[in-house]
């Protein structure tokens, strides 16, 4: 199964269950930065409706096998569900439940429509500013590299930097933002 087929399968399942969703991870990153390969199809899903995640997983199985056990990220305690295509693949699906973190809510509300008829993908993705804030918040080496790539490719002059700076102040990641900006060579 190709990565776009896997992404389409998950997007269609969200639509069939009337669940608001947003494609994140490397898919969204690639749209705003230097393209790279990925191992995951990452999707944030609004499952505030009771039983929403179970319905979505039920629709995706058995073609995508979920391990049953939910994981929590140790930064925000958001919930993650991992699915593996039953067919041989190097890819995984990661479903992230939308939750009541103020930034996560803001990011989801500001999402943009993406239509790529060439590969039959129509979905939602975060804004570049929200990807930067998110990456700086996570702060792992790869996240900081990704934040730099989005800042450099989009260009701070074309981004809503006051929005980024505001969230970085709230998350206490202003030092990371400044260090990341300083690592962009003159273009």
């Amino acid at each position: 199964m190709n990565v776009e087929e896997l992404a389409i399968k998950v997007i269609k399942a969200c639509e069939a269950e009337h669940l608001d969703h947003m494609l994140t991870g490397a898919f969204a990153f690639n749209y705003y930065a230097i393209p790279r390969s990925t191992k995951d199809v990452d999707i944030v899903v609004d499952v505030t409706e009771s039983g929403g995640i179970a319905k979505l997983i039920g629709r995706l199985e058995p073609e995508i096998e979920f391990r049953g056990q939910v994981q929590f990220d140790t930064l925000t305690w958001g919930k993650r569900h991992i699915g593996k295509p039953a067919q041989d693949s190097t890819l995984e699906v990661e479903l992230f439940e939308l939750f009541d973190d103020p930034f996560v809510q803001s990011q989801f509300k500001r999402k943009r429509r993406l239509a790529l008829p060439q590969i039959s993908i129509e979905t939602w993705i975060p804004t570049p500013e929200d990807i930067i804030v998110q990456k700086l918040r996570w702060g792992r080496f790869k996240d900081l590299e990704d934040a730099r790539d989005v800042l450099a490719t989009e260009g701070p002059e074309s981004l809503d930097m006051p929005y980024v700076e505001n969230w970085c102040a709230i998350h206490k990641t202003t030092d990371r933002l400044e260090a990341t900006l300083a690592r962009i060579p003159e273009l």
Partner: protein
Amino acid sequence: MPNPHDHPTALTDLQDSIYREKVLRARKMTREERFITGVELTNEVSRRILQGAMARLQTTDESVAWADVHRRASRLRRTHDYGMYSFEKLTQ
């Protein structure tokens, strides 16, 4: 460009030059082209990973190679996720 061994900042200059080229190449593409390039890269990498496993294991049996790929990918994911994810929500 100076030899990185001869000048203290030459290595940084080289890194910046490579990074600059990558960014400028990405900027020449539309956002849609970048997205599709990421999709193509992912599919190509996936294909090469399988071929690499088949060559390493000296097998023509894809299922044997996939088993090895899954084992290695699983170990890599556990390493990447270490400390970032928990099966329990800890109270603060």
